[in-house]
C-alpha cells in the first residue's frame, strides 16, 4: 500500500516541474510581447510552485513520521524506533530528500520574492522569478528522472535501516538544512541581478532586497560550516574539526566569494562602485553552490563524505555550463550598465581595502578549488591517485587569512575617498604599535612559532581596530551631536547597527584565528595503553584509569571507560567518560561509534577517546587517546560571533529606510568627519 500522501507528493513534484517551466515561458512571452498582464501569470505560478513543493515536502515528511516503509527513501533513512526529531532530520539525510528540501527552499524563496517584488518593475521581477523557477524546476527534473524521493521500495520491509548513528547529534540535525539554506539563498541575489540586468536597470535598487539575501545566505552558510566542524570535532573522534575534505571545501568555496560579495554590495549600495565585482561575485557564489553539489554528488572527487557515484552528476555538469555561459553572457551584455558611478583615485582608503579583500578572498577560493580538484587533474594527466594533504591548505590559506584579517582591521579605520591614509595615519600607527607589542609579548613568553607571532599581531590589530572604531564613534556623537557621554555610548551602538554587526564579525574572525593557531601549533596527542587502577602521566596530566562498564540504552549498548584526570598543578581534578557505542542498526557487525568525552575551558580542551580495551585477562586494559587542544573553544566562540554579527547586519537600519547616510551613521563617517570636527 503506497498511501495517498506519497502519490500526492509525486504528483505535486511533477506539477512543480510544469509550473516552473510555465513561469519561464510566461516571462519570455512577457518580454517578447510587452504584455504586462503576463507578469500576473508569473507571480501566480511562482506562488503555486511554492505551494506544490510544500505539498510534496509535507508528503515526504508525513511518510517519514508515519513509518511508510513502502517508500524506498523512508526504508533507507528511517526506522520505527527513531526519535521524532531524527525522523524529521531524515528528510534531508539522503540524496533524494535533500534535493526535495533544496527545491522546497527555492520555492519558498521565490514566494518571498514574489511578495517583496510587488512594487518593482514588472519585467525585472518576472525575470528574477523566472530564474528562481528555472533552478527549482531543474531540481524537480533531477528528482523525477534520477532521484525520486517517492520511489517505491521493490522489497516489502517491516522496518527501515535507520539513520546513520553518527548523525544522531543535534549539530548534525541542524548542519545540513543550514547549508542548504545558504546554497539556496545564493540563488536569490543572482536572480535579482539577472532581473535588473535584463530589464536594463543601471541603478542599484535591486540590491535593496538582494542585500538581505546576501547576508542571510552568508549567515546560514557560516552557521552550517561551523556546526559541521563542531560535529566533526565531537563525533569523529579525530581531535580535529576540519580535514580539507572535498565536500568540506565545497561548502567553503561559496563562503569565500559570498564574503567578498557581502562587502562589495555595501560599497555598491553606498557609493555606486564595485558594480562589476558584485555582479561577478553574485554569479560566482551561485555557481559555486551548484559546483559544490556536483563535487558531492557526482563521485568525481573521492571523499569520505560523498553520496557516491550518481547519474545526477551529468545533469549538474550541464547546469554548471549553462549557468556560467548564461550568467556571464548577461553580465557581458550589460557590462556598460555596470560602470562605477565614482572613480577611485587612490589605493589606500576603505575602497582599496575592500578591493584587496575581494582579490584575496577570490584567490583563497581559487586555491581551495584547485586543491580540491587536483586529484582529478592528476588522474586525467595519468599521474595516479594523489591526495593533497591538510599541510598544503594550511601553508597557503592560513597566511592569506592572516593578511585578510590585517586588511579587515584597517579597512574600517581608513575613511572613504582621497586623503584617507593621511587622515587615519595616527590611528593606524596606534594599531601597528599594539600589533608589534603583541608580537613582542609572544617572544617574551617564549612562544616563538612564526604562526603564533604573526597571529598574535593580527589578532591585536583587529581588536585595537575595533576599540578605535568604538572610541571614535562615541567621540563623533559627542562632538557633532552634542550627546552626553552615556547617551553618546548608547547612540554610537544603536545607530548604524550594520557597521557594528560587521565589527562583531571581524572580532569573530580574530577569535577563529586564536582557536585555529592555538590548537594547531600547541595541540598534543598521546595514545596509551593503561591498566585498571594504573596512573600514567601525559604532558603533566595524571591519568588514572578507573573502570570499564557496559551500559544498555534505547538503541545501543555502550562500553564506558572512567578516567580520573589531575591537572599538572594538582588544582583541577575531573572525571571523563569516553565510550564506544554498538548501535543495533546502521553499522557493520563489530563496528562501534566512538563517543568523545571532553573537559572544556577557554584555555584548552581535554579530549579523550576510548580506542579499544581488553577485559578478558585478570587486569583490564584500555587504549586511550588523550589530546590537549589549547584555545580551541575560541574557534566556536568566533563562529558564534560571526553569526551574531551577520544577524545584526540583517536588522533594517535607518540608512536602509532611506534616512540620509550622515544622519544614520556616526561611526561610518568617523575618520573624515572627526578630522573636520577636530579642525573646527
Amino acid at each position: 500500500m503506497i498511501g495517498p500522501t506519497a502519490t500526492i507528493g509525486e504528483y505535486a513534484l511533477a506539477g512543480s516541474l510544469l509550473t516552473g517551466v510555465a513561469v519561464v515561458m510566461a516571462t519570455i512571452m512577457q518580454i517578447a510581447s510587452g504584455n504586462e498582464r503576463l507578469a500576473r501569470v508569473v507571480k501566480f505560478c511562482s506562488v503555486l510552485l511554492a505551494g506544490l513543493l510544500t505539498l510534496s515536502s509535507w508528503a515526504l515528511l508525513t511518510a517519514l513520521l508515519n513509518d511508510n516503509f513502502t517508500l524506498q527513501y523512508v526504508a533507507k533513512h528511517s526506522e520505527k524506533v527513531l526519535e521524532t526529531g531524527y525522523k524529521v532530520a531524515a528528510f534531508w539525510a539522503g540524496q533524494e530528500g535533500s534535493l526535495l528540501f533544496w527545491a522546497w527552499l527555492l520555492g519558498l524563496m521565490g514566494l518571498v520574492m514574489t511578495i517583496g517584488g510587488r512594487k518593482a518593475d514588472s519585467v525585472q521581477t518576472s525575470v528574477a522569478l523566472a530564474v528562481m523557477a528555472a533552478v527549482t524546476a531543474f531540481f524537480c527534473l533531477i528528482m523525477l528522472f534520477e532521484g525520486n524521493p517517492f520511489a517505491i521500495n521493490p522489497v516489502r520491509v517491516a522496518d527501515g535501516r535507520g539513520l546513520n548513528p553518527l548523525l544522531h547529534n543535534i549539530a548534525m540535525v541542524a548542519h545540513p538544512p543550514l547549508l542548504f539554506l545558504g546554497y539556496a539563498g545564493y540563488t536569490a541575489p543572482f536572480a535579482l541581478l539577472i532581473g535588473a540586468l535584463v530589464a536594463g536597470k543601471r541603478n542599484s535598487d535591486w540590491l535593496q532586497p538582494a542585500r538581505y539575501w546576501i547576508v542571510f545566505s552568508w549567515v546560514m552558510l557560516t552557521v552550517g560550516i561551523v556546526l559541521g566542524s563542531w560535529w566533526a570535532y565531537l563525533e569523529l573522534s579525530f581531535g580535529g574539526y576540519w580535514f580539507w575534505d572535498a565536500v568540506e571545501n565545497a561548502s567553503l568555496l561559496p563562503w569565500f566569494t559570498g564574503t567578498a560579495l557581502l562587502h562589495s554590495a555595501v560599497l555598491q549600495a553606498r557609493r555606486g562602485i564595485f558594480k562589476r565585482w558584485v555582479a561577478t561575485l553574485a554569479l560566482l557564489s551561485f555557481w559555486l553552490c551548484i559546483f559544490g553539489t556536483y563535487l558531492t554528488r557526482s563521485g568525481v572527487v573521492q571523499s569520505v563524505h560523498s553520496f557516491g557515484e550518481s547519474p545526477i552528476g551529468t545533469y549538474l555538469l550541464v547546469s554548471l555550463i549553462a549557468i556560467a555561459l548564461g550568467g556571464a553572457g548577461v553580465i557581458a551584455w550589460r557590462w556598460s550598465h555596470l560602470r562605477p558611478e565614482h572613480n577611485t583615485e587612490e589605493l589606500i582608503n576603505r575602497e582599496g581595502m575592500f578591493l584587496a579583500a575581494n582579490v584575496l578572498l577570490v584567490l583563497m577560493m581559487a586555491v581551495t578549488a584547485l586543491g580540491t580538484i587536483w586529484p582529478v587533474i592528476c588522474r586525467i594527466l595519468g599521474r595516479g591517485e594523489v591526495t593533497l594533504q591538510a599541510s598544503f591548505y594550511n601553508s597557503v590559506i592560513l597566511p592569506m587569512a592572516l593578511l585578510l584579517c590585517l586588511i579587515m582591521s584597517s579597512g574600517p579605520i581608513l575613511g572613504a575617498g582621497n586623503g584617507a591614509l593621511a587622515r587615519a595615519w595616527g590611528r593606524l600607527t596606534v594599531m601597528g604599535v599594539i600589533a608589534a607589542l603583541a608580537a613582542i609579548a609572544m617572544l617574551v613568553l617564549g612562544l616563538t612559532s612564526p604562526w603564533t607571532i604573526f597571529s598574535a599581531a593580527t589578532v591585536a590589530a583587529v581588536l585595537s581596530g575595533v576599540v578605535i572604531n568604538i572610541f571614535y564613534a562615541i567621540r563623533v556623537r559627542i562632538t557633532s551631536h552634542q550627546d552626553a557621554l552615556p547617551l553618546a555610548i548608547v547612540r554610537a551602538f544603536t545607530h548604524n547597527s550594520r557597521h557594528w554587526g560587521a565589527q562583531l564579525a571581524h572580532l569573530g574572525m580574530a577569535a577563529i584565528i586564536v582557536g585555529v593557531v592555538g590548537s594547531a601549533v600547541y595541540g598534543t596527542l598521546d595514545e596509551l595503553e593503561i591498566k585498571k587502577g594504573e596512573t600514567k602521566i601525559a604532558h603533566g596530566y595524571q591519568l588514572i584509569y578507573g573502570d570499564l562498564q557496559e551500559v544498555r540504552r534505547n538503541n545501543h549498548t555502550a562500553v564506558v571507560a572512567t578516567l580520573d584526570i589531575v591537572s599538572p598543578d594538582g588544582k583541577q581534578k575531573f572525571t571523563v567518560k569516553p565510550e564506544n557505542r554498538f548501535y543495533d542498526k546502521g553499522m557493520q557487525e563489530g563496528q562501534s561509534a566512538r563517543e568523545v568525552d571532553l573537559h572544556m575551558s577557554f584555555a584548552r580542551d581535554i579530549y579523550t577517546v576510548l580506542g579499544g580495551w581488553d577485559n578478558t585477562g585478570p587486569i583490564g586494559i584500555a587504549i586511550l587517546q588523550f589530546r590537549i587542544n589549547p584555545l580551541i573553544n575560541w574557534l566556536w566562540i568566533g563562529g558564534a560571533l560571526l553569526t551574531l554579527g551577520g544577524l545584526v547586519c540583517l536588522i533594517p537600519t535607518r540608512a536602509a529606510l532611506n534616512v540620509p547616510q550622515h544622519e544614520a551613521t556616526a561611526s561610518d563617517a568617523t575618520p573624515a568627519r572627526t578630522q573636520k570636527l577636530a579642525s573646527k
Partner: protein
Amino acid sequence: MTHVKTKIAVAGLILASAVGYLAYAGMDKGWVYTLSVDHFLQKPAAEQQRTRVRLCGTVEPTDFQAVKGRLGAKFVLKGETATIPVSYTGIVPEMFKAGAEVLVEGKRDASGVFQSDVMLTKCASKYEEAPNGHPVKTKPTTQEAEAKP
C-alpha cells in the same frame, strides 16, 4: 585614473604571484600518492624509503599480529600479486582483521618493513555511500588529525 588602474593591476599581480608561489611550494610537499602494493614495489628502493605514500591492499591471514586492547599491529599487506610487511603504530581500527582491505600511510625502512602511523580500514575509492554524505567512522590520517599549519 589610468595611473590608479596601473597601481591596482601591479598590486593584484604581486598578490597573485605571492599566492601562486605559496600554492606551488605547498603543493610540492603537500601531496601523497595512493599506490597499489605491486606498483610501490616496482619503484627504486631509495624512493620507497624517501617518499611517504599511501598503500592499498588486503591484510594477509599469515603473520598477523594484532592484540586486542593493545596499540599497534604487524601484518603483511597483499596487492594483486606482491606482498609487503607492515608495522603500524597507533590505535588499531576496530574493523581491522585478517582479510580486511586497508590503506596504510608511511614509508619503507631500511629492513624492508613499511612503517605506518596511519591506517584506514577501507581503501579511499571504496567507501560505501554514507547517509547525508557523512563518513563511515575510520581513523583519520595523522596529517589530517594534527593539521599543523
